[in-house]
């Protein structure tokens, strides 16, 4: 297979388009999650979405992406609520609550999924794709749904940009300015969960967290401005989505999700090494210069004390 013919393949074009926009949305929302210190919550909620997907399928009897996304969303929000509730009403700490909800909800989802697969005869329901993601199998209507939802997410972040900044940086001050924290929290949770459940279809419950976490951390190595950070994170998310999809199409039955994550990780390593802000190389140079300055300074002091003597 040569690259040209792969790119001309129309079904691949659709998939490429959808993973790119998913990467952009995940990169954008990831910045909000990073500053809310909720990066790993995305992992928990992605797993917690599984029972909702299966129940939606059971109720409908067929695979309908929109209904499944709604089911996943409800299930994930319920998981988020439980995590909050357990943590605030007992002495159990946040990460324990997250781990419990993640694994118990997922276990429950697998129970239901096994029943569905048994009754529907094998894997015909195609629900397995929600665990590992199946970008390659997406059809045009799926892509349209994904496009609409992710566009809404991106739009909400960009329209309320300064409100988000205030809300993340200093929620109490934001409250003083008349911003309703309840509403901001609600909207944030909604777009956060929407991005997660949309992403599950493409990259699966296990790896969607990577798309949310990695680009935002990479972006931090290039800028101190929140705006630039969001833009960079979105761009890196989009590039990872596109390149990962393209490379996975080169091999037969190569998984899309893991390749996307691999590219996100590669961009992270580049940022970590060469990033303008606190990148390792810059730090190394600065430390060397600092040491020289300190040495110079120390020499000066020694000279001065000698003069005094």
């Amino acid at each position, binding site marked *: 297979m040569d690259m040209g013919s792969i790119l001309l393949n129309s079904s691949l074009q659709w998939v490429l388009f959808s993973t790119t926009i998913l990467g952009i949305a995940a990169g954008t929302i990831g910045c909000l999650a990073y500053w809310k210190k909720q*990066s*790993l919550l995305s992992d928990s909620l992605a797993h917690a979405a599984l029972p909702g997907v299966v129940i939606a399928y059971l109720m409908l009897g067929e695979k309908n992406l929109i209904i499944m996304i709604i089911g996943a969303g409800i299930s994930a929000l319920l998981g988020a609520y439980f995590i909050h509730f357990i943590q605030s009403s*007992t002495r159990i700490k946040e990460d*324990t609550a997250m781990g*419990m909800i993640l*694994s*118990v909800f*997922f276990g429950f989802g697998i129970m239901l999924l*096994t029943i569905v697969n048994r009754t529907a005869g094998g894997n015909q329901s195609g629900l397995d794709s929600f665990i590992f993601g199946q970008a390659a199998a997406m059809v045009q209507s799926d892509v349209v749904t994904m496009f609409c939802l992710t566009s809404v997410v991106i739009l909400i972040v960009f329209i309320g940009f300064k409100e988000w900044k205030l809300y993340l940086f200093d929620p109490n001050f934001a409250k003083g300015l008349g911003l309703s924290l309840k509403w901001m929290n609600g909207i944030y949770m909604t777009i956060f969960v929407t991005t997660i459940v949309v992403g599950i279809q493409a990259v699966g419950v296990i790896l969607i967290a990577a798309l949310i976490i990695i680009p935002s*951390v990479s972006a931090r190595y290039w800028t101190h401005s929140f705006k630039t950070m969001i833009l960079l994170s979105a761009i890196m998310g989009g590039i990872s989505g596109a390149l990962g999809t393209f490379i996975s199409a080169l091999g037969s039955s190569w998984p899309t999700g893991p390749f996307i994550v691999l590219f996100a990780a590669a961009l992270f390593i580049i940022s970590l090494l060469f990033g303008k802000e606190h990148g390792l190389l810059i730090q190394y140079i600065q430390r060397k210069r600092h040491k020289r300055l300190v040495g110079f300074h120390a020499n000066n002091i020694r000279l001065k004390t000698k003069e005094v003597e």
Partner: protein
Amino acid sequence: MTYTGWIIMTASLVGLSCGIIGVFLILRKMAMMADAISHTVLLGIVTAYLVTKELSGIHMLVGAIIAGLLTAFMVQWLHTLGVQEHASLGIVFTTLFAIGVILIATSVGNAHLDVKHALMGEITFIPWERMALPVIGEVPKATALLALIVMFVTFCIVAFYKEWKITTFDPALAASLGIPVVFMHYLFMCLVSVTTVASFDAVGAIMVVAMLITPAASAYLWTDRLSIMLLLSGSFGVIAAIAGYYIAAFMDTSISGSMAFATGLVFLFSFLFSPKHGLFASRGKLLKGNLKF
């Protein structure tokens, strides 16, 4: 022993070892580290397979320990570079897991290693692969390995009980007393990896997290004594494992999923009814407090 007997035996061993390890996991606030390690262990197993071309217990264990230590080390390293702890965890485990999946898809093929199998576990296969042991007779391989690991984990926890306690509660004091805190940390990561990989066949990577965290969190609501918490957590693990098996048999569904679900039921029960920290107990206390005012 019967087929069902072996399955229940295996499940109980998983519940026991995970329950014991889980106590220190949650007290050290490393629950999500368990989630991370349970995923990256996959890379360890794949690499071990690619290097040795066979899938035997000991190779898997070594691969898993290396992967687990690597995960803990990399997370720590990124954190010291200024990345938020949870974010560095997320970066490391998803990346290593993705590499594992890609290796399986590109160079291993589906013949011997199956991602789905590793993630979901398949306890029903366990009784088929047996080995002969002196005195005891025919024993499923996975069960024998698990029994060995339960003994090893229990030994490590009991022998260094007070060291685990002090390094968990107050690492600064422990270090000033000359206890090797860093070594204990990585030894603990080894124990987690070993427990995880041994439980893999039975419950898989994601459900092992349920077995590790949930019984311990439930026990945490019942007692204020560490020793009792360990006993309770181990028992809860065994109860959930057995209950999970019967739920699965009754509903004809995934055993590992049902076990994870059963740990959730144990937690729900503790959460509602524990006399010390349960929801009803604290509501009652609140009411009493209100009456006083």
